């Protein structure tokens, strides 16, 4: 069995579990518990990781992992990113400082971002228009990144497919002309 791996990360409530659920063949396995953290308006939160699977072809499986949202579990990130082909960062634009949230992930995955493709999905952007997508691009540029940034509603399968599409375009570019 050939196995591929993609990792979804982002703040609590950004929609990692939902995104994986939308494309997974099997119901997402989540290690969720009741949320007692009053900072987040949700009933449960992921404390371990989310896991979904997609059968790509016979003997070929895509495994989807979601990191725990709360940054006190960030020790899990390095474990989960190992051997991943790509990283999806989901940002919730309704939070107090979404650009600082993005910084957390750019710094947390700094060395991996040199090696693997990544795409940023910004949720709740229609209701919360600041920061704008341009602000995200400027912020990424300061870190030396030109990563794709798109608005997403991860409940919509088309939006999650677009995230995959932009990851795949990067992977394909590197696979075709390695070492550029």
């Amino acid at each position, binding site marked *: 069995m*050939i196995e*591929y791996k993609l990792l979804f990360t982002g703040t609590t409530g950004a929609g990692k579990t939902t995104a994986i659920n939308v*494309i997974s063949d099997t119901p997402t396995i989540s290690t969720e518990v009741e949320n007692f953290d009053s900072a987040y308006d949700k009933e449960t939160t992921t404390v371990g990781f989310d896991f979904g699977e*997609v*059968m*790509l*072809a016979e003997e*070929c499986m*895509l495994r989807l992992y979601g990191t725990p949202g709360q940054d006190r579990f960030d020790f899990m990130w390095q474990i989960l990113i190992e*051997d991943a*082909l790509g990283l999806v960062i989901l940002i919730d634009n309704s939070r107090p400082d979404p650009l600082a949230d993005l910084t957390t992930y750019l710094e947390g995955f700094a060395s*991996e971002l*040199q*090696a*693997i*493709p990544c*795409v940023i999905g910004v949720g709740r952007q229609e209701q919360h228009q600041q920061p704008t*997508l*341009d602000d*995200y*691009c*400027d912020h*990424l*540029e300061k870190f030396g990144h*030109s*990563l*794709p*940034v*798109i608005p997403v509603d991860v409940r919509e399968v088309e939006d999650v*497919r*677009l995230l*995959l*599409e*932009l*990851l*795949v*375009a*990067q*992977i*394909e*570019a*590197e*696979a*075709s*002309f*390695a*070492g*550029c």
Partner: protein
Amino acid sequence: MTKKLLGIASRSLRLPEINLIQTILRTSSALKEEWQLVDRGSVDALLVDDPGALPAAYQASQSTEKITVKRRGESGDGYLFLTPIRADELIDTLLSIGGVKQRSSARQAGQPLVDQPSLADTTAEINAISRYKLKRWPSNDLLAREKIYRRLAATISRSCKSPDELVQLTGLELEVCRDFLKLLQAEGILSNCEGQRVAPLESVPANDNRASFVKYIRNRFKLSAWR
């Protein structure tokens, strides 16, 4: 229109080369005579041998971009100016600096980023054999012009590609790829990869694995095929 000022504080550039730079600034249709060579005072960009040293004749502000002069084949950080001179590289660099400054000053003034370049009014030059990479993800306005642009942008967000390589990868018409690169260049968010140190790809599975993955995932999720 306020001209942008370029200073030369490099001792390694000789008079014929300085004259050539002057000629490029005056005659390049892409630069539209927006840049002017000066020998003193406050400048927008400065050609230097050592980015840490500044000659007394020039006043550099925080926004002054330093362009380090290097011999072709040498590498360095930030903006580079490689000798022997190639006009297209100098033009690319100045367009890039001009684009960043334009965006920065518009944002500071609280103005929307209007005046998106259209293909009709851009005269940016794309070299067929040069390889290009994004410096910044393009604006939504630009990406919305053609459905294919978002994926094309992703293709050069981490990898350097020449127009021919883009054609080979995507199967799109050369003209489509060149037009897209021209728009990015006119927006000042495209960098020419020559002379840049490219980070090695680490910890990635063998290329054939990734190629298989691309094929499988495209089929499974019915992602758009290029061709």
